[in-house]
């Protein structure tokens, strides 16, 4: 039997069009026998996606329940993230490949032709066709009640919507007047843009299609205000809170919220198979138990979960390691994909005129960065396991350049002192603290969101080394919303947060985080607000380098070539490192990942990142399997 299977694989390797016979999970056998489900080869698309296994993984077997822990009911949305079935998705090398789509074609960076797999079906067995895409575009994104604010911004280029066509049942074409480089990465995102909806299911809740009387009753029964509210609540493919909604992910929810235990069953119509023809996912059910997030490390240590990274922190590592043997699991250490673990943001829009003058002087920001002893932080807080680094992209990213990681990020108090002296800040008070031009002593208050002791621990170490260059640091913890509002309003001089959200970008991902494009960028909130509101609120950027960053960002937006985008990324990162807009400390901090010893195909070393990465998503949890046992 085994030999035959290998023979088929070889044949498949030689002639990709001949797929091995599809194999169904025993989990569904009784439903197939009773006639409730069709046999597996009729449920799969005509040409299913054959999973490409990583070299360190092996084909597995069907069966088993995978247990996971989440902190609250809403967290079950992460199954959409982990499931990671996308129209196009990233592979482990962060290249875009078609997934739900059979293929896609891009012309001039502005015309996207998407082709569906013939015979692809929703989790309820209804066919997935271009009608589902048309329903989204015509009846959801452009419906005045459902989307009063218009289609999502990523679908607009210079405020203009695309022309969307549906030449046949399997083909969808989006055409913009100019390139839209964000389109594909939005489809591949961890929290993706869904440009399709299960039209056959949702039409019963749509004013244009449903019987008015019936719809009225449905709305009343659900306690919703109007049909749009009901439709929007039921059609969310991301949150997984509606078990009736057909989806395309590997597991579909069967437990309606609220609950403390959510069960997800295998999607009988999932479009991937392994090299032996076994329909994926291997694992029949995913069970998500809800526990308080502070209890998650303890429960993980007690072996109550088979795969866990969320709510585990590096300082839980020793505790988790201790009960490894007793509860038959292994703790692995993955690298976090953020640009920096703890970064400081001098607020270039601070209200205080004296301070504003100072923080806008690049010498001042460089001096602050040079006066941080990153080695000490790494050794004391991260046991030397992190990497001392600027707030820039990680070495895993194709646009990474090693010199940017260390630029203005070495520990050089003498040079820092020289820079500050050059700025004319030579006077010191009796305690050795420098004096501002208006006579106040140089005390920097760093706002924190008050959520982790990690930030305050790092700041405590920085406080000591800054004191040597004559700057006094105070930490001001507050609450998250207050923290943000203080920064946005310019009341805060400096704040601390994690670094770049996406530390492993490819050239094809938008460099929005590097240019003043959003209010949530803590170093230039008012410039970002100005950009976001098209100049209605906020302040226009007035530093030449920041204006240059914006210009580069626009250039990236209208570029159609990957090479050009890579060049722009390089320039923007160089400006960033040289201008020290944010002051990074360490990156590549390790994320403990608990893996049951029965669970196979989870990489030993991986990157734990939101987007790109979708946490476990790019490692394709549908190819994880449980070995016999228990």
């Amino acid at each position, binding site marked *: 039997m085994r030999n035959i299977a290998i023979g088929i694989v070889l044949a498949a390797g030689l002639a990709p069009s001949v797929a091995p016979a599809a194999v169904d999970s025993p989990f569904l056998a009784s439903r197939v026998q009773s006639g409730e489900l069709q046999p597996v080869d009729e449920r799969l698309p005509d040409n299913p996606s054959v999973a490409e296994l990583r070299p360190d993984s092996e084909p597995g077997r069907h069966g088993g329940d995978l*247990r996971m822990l989440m902190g*609250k*009911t*809403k967290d079950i949305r992460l199954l959409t993230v982990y499931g990671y079935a996308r129209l196009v998705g990233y592979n482990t090398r962060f290249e875009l490949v078609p997934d739900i789509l059979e293929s896609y074609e891009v012309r001039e960076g502005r015309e996207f032709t998407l082709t569906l797999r013939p015979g692809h079906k929703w989790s309820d067995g209804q066919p997935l066709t271009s009608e589902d895409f048309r329903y989204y575009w015509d009846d959801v994104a452009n419906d005045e009640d*459902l*989307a*009063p*604010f*218009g*289609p*999502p*911004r990523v679908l607009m280029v210079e405020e203009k919507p695309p022309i969307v066509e549906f030449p046949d049942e399997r083909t969808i074409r989006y055409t913009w007047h100019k390139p839209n480089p964000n389109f594909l990465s939005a489809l591949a*995102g*961890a*929290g993706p843009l869904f440009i399709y909806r299960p039209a056959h299911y949702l039409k019963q809740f749509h004013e244009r299609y449903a019987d008015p009387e019936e719809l009225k009753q449905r709305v009343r029964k659900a*306690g919703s*205000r109007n049909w*749009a*509210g009901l439709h*929007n*609540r039921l059609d969310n493919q991301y*949150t997984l*809170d509606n078990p009736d909604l057909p989806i395309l992910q590997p597991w579909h929810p069967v*437990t309606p*919220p*609220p*609950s*403390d*235990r959510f069960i997800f069953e295998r999607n009988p119509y999932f479009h991937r198979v392994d090299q032996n023809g076994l329909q994926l996912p291997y694992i029949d059910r995913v*069970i998500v*138990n809800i*526990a*308080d997030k*502070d*209890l998650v490390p*303890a*429960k993980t240590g*007690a072996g*109550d979960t088979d795969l866990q990274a969320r709510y585990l922190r590096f300082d839980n590592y020793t505790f988790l390691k201790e009960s490894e043997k007793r509860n038959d699991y292994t703790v692995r250490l993955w690298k976090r994909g*953020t640009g920096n673990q703890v970064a400081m943001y001098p607020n270039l829009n601070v209200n205080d005129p004296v301070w504003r003058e100072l923080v806008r002087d690049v010498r001042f920001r460089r001096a602050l960065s040079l006066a941080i002893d990153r080695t000490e932080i790494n050794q004391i807080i991260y046991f030397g396991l992190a990497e001392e680094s600027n707030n820039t992209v990680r070495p895993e990213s194709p646009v990474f350049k090693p010199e940017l990681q260390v630029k203005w990020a070495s520990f050089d108090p003498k040079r820092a002192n020289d820079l500050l002296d050059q700025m004319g800040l030579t006077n010191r008070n009796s305690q050795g603290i420098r004096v501002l031009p208006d006579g106040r002593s140089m005390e920097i208050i760093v706002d924190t*969101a008050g*959520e982790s002791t990690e930030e305050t621990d790092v700041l405590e170490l920085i406080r000591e080394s800054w004191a040597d260059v004559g700057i006094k640091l105070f930490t001001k913890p507050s*609450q*998250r*919303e*207050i923290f*943000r*509002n203080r920064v946005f309003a310019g009341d805060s001089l400096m704040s601390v947060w994690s670094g770049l*959200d996406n530390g492993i970008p490819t050239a094809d991902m938008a460099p929005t985080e590097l240019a003043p494009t959003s209010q*949530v960028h803590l170093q230039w909130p008012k410039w970002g607000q100005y950009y976001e509101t098209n100049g209605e609120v906020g302040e226009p950027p007035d530093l030449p380098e920041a204006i240059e960053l914006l210009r580069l960002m626009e250039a990236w937006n209208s570029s159609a070539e990957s090479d050009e985008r890579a060049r722009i990324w390089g320039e923007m990162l160089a400006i960033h490192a040289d201008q020290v807009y944010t002051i990074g400390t360490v990156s590549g901090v390790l994320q403990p990942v608990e893996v049951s010893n029965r669970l196979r195909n989870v990489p030993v070393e991986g990157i734990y*990142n*939101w*987007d790109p990465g979708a946490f476990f998503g790019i490692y394709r949890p549908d190819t994880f399997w449980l070995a016999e046992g228990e």
Partner: protein
Amino acid sequence: MLRYVVHRTMMMVPTLVAISILVFVIIQLPPGDYLESHIAELQSQGESVDEQKIAFLRQHYGLDKPVWQQYLVWLWGMLHGDFGYSFEYNMPVNDVVGDRLFLTIFVSTVTVLFTWAVAFPIGIYSATHQYSWGDYGLTFIGFIGVATPNFLLALVMLYLANVYFGTSIGGLMDAEYIDQPWSLGKFMSVLEHLWIPVIVIGTSGTAGMIRRLRANLLDELQKQYVTTGRAKGLPEGRLLRKYPLRMALNFFISDIGSLLPTVISGAEMVAVVMSLPTTGPMLLSALQSQDMYLAGSFLMFLACLTVIGVLISDLALAVLDPRIRLQGGEST
């Protein structure tokens, strides 16, 4: 008596209205609203937010309206049994609470019974054997119960129970029984988990009750009727049960007022630490995420129970102890 009851009931209405305003205002006090906390939380996990969706929700939930309008809508709904909409769970509040309420009542009732079962004998023993070794020893243990932080005790016991008995950490039953119909297995699993929260929550209550019972009983034991009874040859046990113990129970009746809300809310701190499927953690997370209708309705419910509980205990006291007069109703 009837007049008193009517009067007290009438008084409850303005009290509850005042409480509802207070509750609403306090929930609204922190800056921002549910959607802002929601966005901030998503962003802190590195997730992005669809601004169009947020704008739609803000409009849909009525969060763009002035606060007083939101309050009136909520109040009007409550009078019709509609407690509003939970943003966090994306469904009506009535559906959210569900069987958590039942489990909460169950845990709390068992806890209360446990407290009584431990506190009564010890309290009586301490009072009748005042300043004996037994009195000191038991009082000492009681004080340890008060002095140990509940949540710490909970964590330590969870860990020990897991290591030595293999009990799963947190929750009230093994995971496979959640959402399943009741069965013997499920019941046993609940019992296996129940004793930790009961002991942890119980220990603090026990000590307080021992002290109060001891003090009240000591007062009575000094009285002359006890001496008389003893002189007339009543056996010690019968004497104690028949006279001073009954007199010492007044405090116990007035406790009922605060008992009702505790039975529903459970001990929040312990429930949060132990991740019990009770209402306490739900209330806390609703307050944290500014899920205002869920939190508000919860607090209102607790307020109602407190008000009703106080009424019941007042009436019970009046019935049980003729020395207590009904002065509220009389125009004095």
